[in-house]
């Protein structure tokens, strides 16, 4: 019972966002995953925010990313910054690619 109470308490604290806010899935790879210390997170942004606003918020949350030359995508397509966002969208933040 104590465990259950604690979990609900924590969830209550972390899940309450702005009314109508959007929830994005954020992914990191390679150098950005190492810099952020995680491979994914969930980001809440105000309704109407564009992809560039979301990227800015990611950089505020993970300032270690700022020293890298970054690219980003929305729903697996390269983004420019003006793309409108919806709840459930997938934002990925990564460095200039180096495959081949």
């Amino acid at each position, binding site marked *: 019972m104590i465990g259950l109470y604690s979990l609900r308490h924590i969830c209550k604290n972390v899940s309450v966002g702005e009314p109508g806010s959007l929830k994005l899935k954020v*992914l990191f*790879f*390679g*150098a950005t995953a*190492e810099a952020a210390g995680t491979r994914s997170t969930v980001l809440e942004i105000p309704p109407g925010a564009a992809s560039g606003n979301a990227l800015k918020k990611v950089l505020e949350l993970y300032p270690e990313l700022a020293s*890298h*030359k970054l*690219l980003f*995508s929305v729903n*697996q*397509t*390269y*983004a*420019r910054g003006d793309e409108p966002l919806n709840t459930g969208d997938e934002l*990925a933040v*990564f*460095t*200039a*690619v*180096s*495959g*081949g």
Partner: protein
Amino acid sequence: MDFFELTTDPIDITSVSRRVIPPECGATVTLDGYVRKFTKGRETLYLIYEAYEPMALKEMQKLILQAKTDFEISNVGIVHRLGRLEIGETSVAISVAAPHRRAAFAACEWLIRELKRTVPIWKKEVYADGEEWIEGDRGAVV
């Protein structure tokens, strides 16, 4: 038949090359990209490749469609390896089949150049004395 794949298994370069051949073609150009031991004098022990897999596959498909629009070629196959690769192992194979060789050479060169610029795959170089994720020198890809 065109194909684009990511795999953690070793790449069989001959089978990639033979899979793209249709009857109207007379030449297949295949790039065998493999792990280099020395880069700018520094010794690599092995590489780790990582991809944003669903986006990498989409970008590979886009490259094939674009190449088939811009060059007189018939079929393209691209296979990129992920995970740990030892020195000399194939990291990427690109095969282009065409009625005539010239277009196949040109398309293959264009495909590897664009793949290295746009497909979300990264390599980590593990050296005798450290390791680093390699960051491409290209800016925003839009």
